[in-house]
């Protein structure tokens, strides 16, 4: 926490020196860009940490400004009621934002572009409402004539209220990055599919990011009313919305302070140059386009790269290790059963009445030619693809077409065919995420100690002398070689100790030594937890090494079940693999 406090104290001191150094008018001007900067920090939060781009964030800024102005008018600017009203306004807007994001991202993870356009439509509609209802908003002329907050002079002491907001928001955003909640947000941007399999409803994670963005932007809007003494439809317009995005992009969306500096720097430059250079706005748009194409991390990323080149390393303190609470996935019981499962993808009929009965414990190998429906079966079990008919049961519980994020709490962990790990996050951060999967409850995400949790299953895997991940804790997980990634993904999957472990070609791309290690780790996990493990595999030597029952799939149906030698002797299986009469 030390460095965060130091950075923000320096920020506060620098801002507090502005009136003394450059006078009250400059402070007033910088105050405006600081408010815009806080609003842009909201955009940065949604974009950099939520992975989606709100193109109409001024809607929160403007609506909050109108609402705050009306409360100021009604109360004559009295301090306490207005402070409470400001929080209430931001809270209500954040709740609306949460609902909107949760709806639009419900059931599909690729609606980001659509979400951007919806926020853009919102800002156009609200601006139109503000213009066409002059009895409420004052129309084009704006809403004016209200007292500023606590009678603070916009050209005097109000500046210090703005600095307080800036420091509070910056401190919170930087602290968030160190909390489990911040880690989950970064994981969301890095690898949404894996986060879902770790039991997170990602539409709700995005909704929280958007709610945070709306809250911050709205708070800036409430102070904007006092600062300007008038609120016009431009405060909720698409021009301001676009500028918020430009400031966040150019300043750097990935750093909590990037958008703030972007807004102040571009704002001050524009104020100076707009009247001298008629083509200044074209230059700003050009810079934005170049940032998007060539330097997606913005100025903050360039600074960070420069600092790394000079040998400055950011050291992040690690919380003390402690045992994690028990996992919800470990408590699940019941055998997995598929009954007459039919699944089409477009015109292709993949699963055609698949019936599988799994034991509650043990290992089952699934083999079958390409296109037999092996991976699709796993997708159906975890809810990644919807069945047209049939049922999937866990004991007595029907989990047919349940959402993906519900699979882990039901006791199901899935390792993908192409290993998915959180690239861009360090190995340590990957393991921290895995250790809180299936265990953390709402409050734990705001508690730094949660990052010290140790999952017993994961700790066992990491402690195995042959597992080559020790000593790589600071490495970017996306830069690990394939064999390491396979092992890491196995670790991510077993950390929550799922009672049903689905492994899709866990040894693909591995050397013989790594393959032997993988077999040992799988058998060890099964023996330790008594779980049921399903392994899709093409390598018959590996199937023999696992010494398990074998299920042969063919054309979306169950062709044969039994021990490996029994299945080998089965003429139907031989016909599928070697050709011949059917």
């Amino acid at each position, binding site marked *: 926490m030390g460095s965060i406090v130091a950075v923000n104290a320096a920020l506060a001191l620098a801002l507090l020196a502005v009136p003394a150094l450059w006078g009250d008018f400059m402070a007033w001007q910088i105050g405006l860009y600081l408010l815009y900067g806080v609003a842009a920090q909201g955009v940065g939060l949604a974009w950099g940490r939520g992975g989606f781009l709100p193109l109409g964030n001024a809607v929160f800024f403007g609506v909050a400004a109108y609402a705050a102005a009306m409360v100021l008018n009604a109360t004559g600017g009295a301090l306490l009621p207005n402070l409470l009203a400001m929080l209430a306004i931001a809270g209500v807007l954040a709740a609306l934002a949460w609902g909107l994001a949760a709806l*639009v991202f419900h059931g599909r993870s690729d*609606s980001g*572009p659509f979400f951007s356009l919806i926020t853009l*439509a919102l800002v156009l509609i609200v601006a*139109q409402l503000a213009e*066409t209802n002059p009895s409420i908003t004052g129309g084009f002329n704006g809403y004016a004539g209200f007292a500023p907050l606590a009678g603070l002079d916009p050209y005097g002491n109000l500046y210090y209220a703005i600095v307080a907001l800036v420091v509070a928001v910056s401190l919170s955003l930087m602290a968030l990055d160190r909390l489990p909640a911040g880690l989950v947000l970064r994981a969301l941007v890095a690898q949404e599919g894996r986060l879902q399999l770790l039991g997170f409803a990602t539409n709700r994670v995005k909704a929280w990011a958007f709610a945070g963005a709306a809250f911050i932007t709205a708070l800036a809007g409430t102070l904007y009313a006092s600062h300007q003494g008038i609120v016009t439809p431009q405060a909720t317009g698409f021009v301001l919305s676009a500028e918020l995005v430009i400031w966040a992009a150019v300043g750097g969306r990935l750093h909590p302070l990037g958008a703030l500096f972007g807004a102040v720097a571009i704002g001050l430059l524009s104020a100076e140059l707009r009247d001298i250079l008629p083509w200044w*706005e074209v230059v700003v748009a050009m810079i*934005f386009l170049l940032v998007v194409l060539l330097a997606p991390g913005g100025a903050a990323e360039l600074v960070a790269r420069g600092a790394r080149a000079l040998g400055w390393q950011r050291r992040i303190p690690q919380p003390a290790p402690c045992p994690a609470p028990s996992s919800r996935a470990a408590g699940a019981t019941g055998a997995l059963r598929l009954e007459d499962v039919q699944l089409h993808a477009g015109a292709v009929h993949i699963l055609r009445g698949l019936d599988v009965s799994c034991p509650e414990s043990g290992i089952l190998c699934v083999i079958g030619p390409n296109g037999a429906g092996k991976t699709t079966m796993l997708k159906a079990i975890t809810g990644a693809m919807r069945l047209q008919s049939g049922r999937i049961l866990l004991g007595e519980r029907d989990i047919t077409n349940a959402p993906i994020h519900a699979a882990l709490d039901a006791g199901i962990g899935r390792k993908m065919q192409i290993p998915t790990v959180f690239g861009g996050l360090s190995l340590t951060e990957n393991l921290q995420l895995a250790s809180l999967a299936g265990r953390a409850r709402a409050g734990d995400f705001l508690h730094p100690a949660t990052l010290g949790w140790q999952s017993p299953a994961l700790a066992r895997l990491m402690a195995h002398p042959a597992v080559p991940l020790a000593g790589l804790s600071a490495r970017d997980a996306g830069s690990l070689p394939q064999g390491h990634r396979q092992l890491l993904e196995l670790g991510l999957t077993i950390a929550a100790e799922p009672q049903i472990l689905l492994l899709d070609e866990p040894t693909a791309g591995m050397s013989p030594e790594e393959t032997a290690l993988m077999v040992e780790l799988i058998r060890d996990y099964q023996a330790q937890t008594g779980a049921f493990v399903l392994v899709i595999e093409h390598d018959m030597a590996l199937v023999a090494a696992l010494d398990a029952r074998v299920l042969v799939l063919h054309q979306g149906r169950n062709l044969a079940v039994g021990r490996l030698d029994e299945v080998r002797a089965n003429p139907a299986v031989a016909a599928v693999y070697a050709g011949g009469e059917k």
Partner: protein
Amino acid sequence: MEAALLIGLNAAWQIAALALLALGLAIVFGLLRILNMAHGEFVMLGAYAHVLTAQAGLPPWMALPVCIGFVGLAALAVERLVVRHLYDRMFDSLLATWALSILMREAVELVWGRAYRNVPLPVEGVTQLGPVGYPSYRLMVIALIVIVFFALWRWYRRSLTGVRLRAMVSNPALARASGINTARLSAMAFVTGCVSAGLAGLILAPVLAVEPNMGLDALIRSFFALVVGGLGTLEGLGIGVAVVGGLQAGLSAAFSQTAGYLGVLILAILFLWRRPDGLYRRR
């Protein structure tokens, strides 16, 4: 009876205008999976072709070749410099085209100013349809759109280029392996989509307020039509513009412009939530 006919004609006009606006966005999204945020700005450029023609002292009918050349060149430059590097990266292409749209708005504002421009109707007068008189230009536009859509649909299903395009949409790698030059085909599709947007601006300029920010409205309304109908097919586009154009015309007539807009927004959110693939889904 008269009132019903008038309402029907107004709805047909709204739907036809929306279909014209949305076609370019549907082409670019359907064929390239790029949500072109600068779509509206290409509509705007098309509308400014009238201004450009008048400034150059050319006769008004020259606006058509000027529009195709002007918008086509702009689209070609955009494809070469920006979009080409962003195929298969939907989010990045959204952001880059958004940045581009701001650049285009600011550039047009710098050159032609922020003032509204009036574009005269090329065909004045009213056509009597039984008891009701309706502007002839609107009737011509409606007829044109019906013909263009039918021709386009036939062409996409029957022609060799249509087959190549459909191959590229369904499997770009296999299409390349089969000897289809997808880079050229993509560039062609992008330019065609943008020119179609420009022509929509050219044709609708007399009935729209021509100014640098006019593109936003065109983009939003086209996008909603595609969400409701189903992104990426001509059939979906047809259904979407009918529903969205009809709803907006109805709500606007009954309440206000804002109500029409709001109703369409809510419909689009409901669709994204409950039926993200839209109304038309190819089996």
